[in-house]
């Protein structure tokens, strides 16, 4: 996280939540269980899966593999769906995957202006900012301004490509491997890759002091 970003950081501003919303949700759950429409154990299992099993570590493994294995990277860019299936990923909200590669000339950014489409199997559930009106409205008209808020400043000659997820195709950014990371193994590489870099709002950096 850069210092430029810190200036914009504040606690998650909860929109006004009616005090009885938690109760309404609980009441709906009780009703659906009472009617036999839902199995409470299935709800617990779903919550556990999205809280603990499906998240950006999955995407980071894909990125690290692409950095370490040029043949995999080629397959990943040609057919993202098939390539991530090699690692066991690709399912609900990620059936059709297109991976877009950052280079010194091109920087990619992902958004869903109409709702909240996001590559769940690789990144987990989207963070609040990704679903916010501010991000959804501005990513397409002012991508460079959005990137600056995240501490990512691009030279004028770099092209910014914004991918608006309007269909069932899901997008993932393949960030640039940071200089100095050439000697790292796949696991060490994966540890460097952040969710924000795979959405395209940040770059991947080596920890201060360089690789361990």
């Amino acid at each position, binding site marked *: 996280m850069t210092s430029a970003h810190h200036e914009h950081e504040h606690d998650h501003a909860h929109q006004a939540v009616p005090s009885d919303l938690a109760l*309404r949700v609980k009441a*709906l759950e009780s009703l659906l269980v009472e009617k036999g429409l839902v199995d409470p154990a299935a709800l617990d299992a779903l919550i556990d899966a999205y809280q603990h099993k499906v998240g950006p570590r999955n995407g980071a493994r894909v990125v690290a593999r692409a950095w370490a294995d040029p043949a995999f990277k080629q397959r990943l860019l040609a057919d993202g769906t098939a390539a991530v299936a090699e690692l066991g990923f690709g399912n609900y909200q990620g059936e059709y995957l297109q991976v877009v590669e950052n280079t010194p000339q091109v920087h990619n950014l992902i958004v869903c202006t109409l709702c909240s489409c996001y590559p769940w199997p690789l990144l987990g559930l989207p963070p609040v900012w990704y679903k916010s009106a501010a991000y959804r409205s501005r990513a397409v008209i002012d991508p460079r301004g959005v990137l600056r808020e995240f501490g990512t400043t691009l030279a004028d000659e770099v092209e910014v490509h914004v991918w608006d997820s*309007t269909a069932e195709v899901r997008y993932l950014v393949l960030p640039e491997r940071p200089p100095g990371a050439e000697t790292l193994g796949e696991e060490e590489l994966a540890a460097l890759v952040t969710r924000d870099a795979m959405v395209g709002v940040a770059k991947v950096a080596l920890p201060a002091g360089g690789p361990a």
Partner: protein
Amino acid sequence: MNGVHDMGGMQGFGPIQYEKDEPVFHERWEALTLAMNIAMRRWDKWNIDTSRYAIERIPPAEYLRMSYYEKWHVRLVELLVQSGMISRAEVESGHRSAGPLHATPPLTAAMVPAITTNWSVAAARDVASPPRFQVGQRVRARNVHPIGHTRLPRYARGKAGVVHRNHGGFVFPDTNAHGLGENPQHLYSVRFSAGELWGAQASERDAVYIDLWDDHLEPA
């Protein structure tokens, strides 16, 4: 529908509020709401497009006031009532009022790992007709303003772009959301230059890629 959900290019929402180390869920009810939405979809009483349209029909002021998962809760109640699975009276009382129901939930805990590894809402379809547009062809997004659900964002309408990729055949959400059939057709990634979309204020190097279907496009 020219709704408030169609946010691309709107201004005035301020800086992006970033929460460091954000938890997956902030409250238990958010997690429950997500899980109930996924579990109830398994009854197959509605599709992904109907479901998105239910959120788009939340009145604009409410849409902007509500948090993400509050919208998901409202949407789920609407879809359950519309499909006759529950009644308004039951929502109010929190208890079952209708006669006996021997339902067997289609989703069990044992199936959850398969859902998060294999289950798919698969929207790809074989389309017999050839694509109307070719990669590299100049196209224009149609200037249309349908009252119902559409995945053609307002900021692209009337704008010219170039077909970047053909994704293959996909269910057409604009009809599928309304029970008018899957109407599968070719889906394309279309590149619009930032200058075409936003005028001289945009960087001439930048571009927005939007996924659009045959029926959204015409030759330019």
